[in-house]
């Protein structure tokens, strides 16, 4: 008895201390898990509470389908249709440009490249993921915009109705976004391609398929769910990006046409939050809510895609 009392600091020492440690560990883990859930719930709650008042004050239709954004006018107008469209079109176009490049890079890394070369390219891709978004924006501002302005001057030379933007337009934003989603797309689709069972590839080659045929007819279909995940994550990154595109897109609310100065959902919040007051501020929260719902939708699609992939793997 005395022995066990002396050793009571040890976990093995007594059943009592052992169960105390067990219980307290359980409490710690539960608290941590609860914290994450609490964060998600409070953010959701906060966005809904702050985002909905403007919807009722201004009207859902006026906000979501209005095309005039004049928040500080004597008779303010809070239409964000163009802003929503810009986010959709901009994200879609950047996916259209970024995904093929990303996927082909992944194929190169996983299948085509000699090992030594792949070991040089891979860290470069990973480095691309680590570059802060403001650097992308700055390079876009200094390099991309002047080039765009030259094109703009040539293309719209005789168009009296075009408003010249000095190169800050949708195309610039799309190019910057496309580069920014590359690492996400490359890394995940490469992992998916590498996870394709070896026997599938071997069977295809044994049946006389060429290397390229094997890649496009066997490997990519087999890695489909992983590639879809890569695309969905890319969409998530593109739609949530603010800093880089706020520097290159011009930030005026316009139709998302290639040479128009445009504003995205994210940049709409960033650029006006500092000086907004009253209802204007509340509408910015509503834009945040719209963005939040968009990203939730993408996450929902992502998890759905993942589950589908798991089922296919089980077969």
């Amino acid at each position, binding site marked *: 008895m005395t022995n066990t009392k002396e050793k009571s600091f040890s976990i093995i020492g007594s059943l009592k201390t052992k169960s105390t440690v067990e219980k307290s560990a359980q409490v710690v883990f539960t608290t941590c898990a609860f914290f994450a859930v609490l964060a998600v719930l409070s953010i959701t709650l906060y966005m809904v509470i702050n985002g909905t008042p403007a919807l009722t004050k201004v009207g859902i239709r006026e906000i979501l389908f209005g095309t005039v954004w004049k928040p500080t006018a004597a008779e303010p107008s809070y239409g964000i249709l163009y802003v929503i469209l810009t986010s959709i079109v901009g994200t879609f176009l950047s996916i259209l440009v970024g995904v093929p490049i990303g996927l082909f890079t992944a194929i190169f890394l996983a299948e085509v490249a000699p090992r030594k070369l792949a070991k040089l390219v891979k860290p470069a891709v990973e*480095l691309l993921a680590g570059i802060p978004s403001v650097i992308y924006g700055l390079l876009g501002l200094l390099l991309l915009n002047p080039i765009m302005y030259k094109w703009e001057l040539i293309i719209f030379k005789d168009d009296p109705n075009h408003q010249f933007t000095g190169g800050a337009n949708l195309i610039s934003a799309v190019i910057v976004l496309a580069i920014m989603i590359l690492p996400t797309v490359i890394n995940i689709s490469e992992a998916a391609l590498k996870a394709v069972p070896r026997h599938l590839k071997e069977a295809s080659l044994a049946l006389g398929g060429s290397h390229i045929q094997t890649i496009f007819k066997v490997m990519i279909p087999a890695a489909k769910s992983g590639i879809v995940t890569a695309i969905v994550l890319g969409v998530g990154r593109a739609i949530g990006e603010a800093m880089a595109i706020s520097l290159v897109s011009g930030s005026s609310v316009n139709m998302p046409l290639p040479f128009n100065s445009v504003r995205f959902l994210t940049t709409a919040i960033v650029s006006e939050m500092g000086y907004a007051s009253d209802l204007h501020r509340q509408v910015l929260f509503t834009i945040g809510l719209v963005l939040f719902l968009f990203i939730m939708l993408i996450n929902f699609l992502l998890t759905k895609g993942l589950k589908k992939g798991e089922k296919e793997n089980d077969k």
Partner: protein
Amino acid sequence: MKNRMSKLVAVIAMSAMVMGTLAGCGSTEEVTETAVEQETTEAAPTPAEEAVVEEAPAEEAVADLSGSISMAGSTSMEKLATALSEVFMAKYPGITVTAEFTGSSAGIESLAAGSVDIGNSSRSLKDSEKEAGAVENIVAIDGIAVVVDPENTVAGLSKDQLVGIYKGEIKNWSEVGGTDAPIVVVGREAGSGTRGAFEELLEVEDLCVYANELDSTGAVMAKVASTPGAIGYVSLDVVDETVVAVALDEVAPTEENIKAGSYFLSRPFVMATQGEVSAQSEAVQELFNFLASEEGKELIKSVGLITVD
């Protein structure tokens, strides 16, 4: 075997990272370059500031107050607020002054919420803000300069021409006596104090057609400086050699002209308090006394602003 391989990978990754860092340096240099360009103007008034600081210790005997003053608000007023807090704290070592730059509306909101003593606003207070108890104390006047890129040949614009350009009716520099080049209209985001003041003074509220709505003074300066044919508006005191400030109605944007009232683009800098100044803490009252003193006026001039009287 495997171990050696992973070492090799590590070495390659390391070298790539070093290369990356070097490349990173290259791009950051560009960042600092533009930053320096902007800073040169901010650095300019320091000699005058220092002069004020040197004077301060002589009168220190008077300074026996203690306490703290917090202010928040307009980013346009950053230079004034920073210089004021430095000099004031040097004069009254017992008082701490903290300043945040959250935007005019956010500053007045913090004031109403009671989290700060002074709300800085680079525009006149709105009726809704005055109803909430904020009192408008105008401490200085700021001029707004209309800037164009250095290669532009247009030296002056009339008020009507400026209005026409910002309303999108005039689209080419040849229409106002310049070369045949399109006009790139650059402005600030809705809610910005500078934009509010500019549009109000020109009576073009919400009629402006912007090609670029940028969210800071620095961004406007950078865009105008780097884009041929661009026109923008910024606070008078940040104008530097990277852009050209044009004369309006044949009046050059200078302090004398703004004081004389002949230059029409100018706006008030407000340090709002919740209730009259006389109802504030001793420290806050002393701050306003300081601003009204000769020393305070010197300070206001040193940051490129114009005193009220």
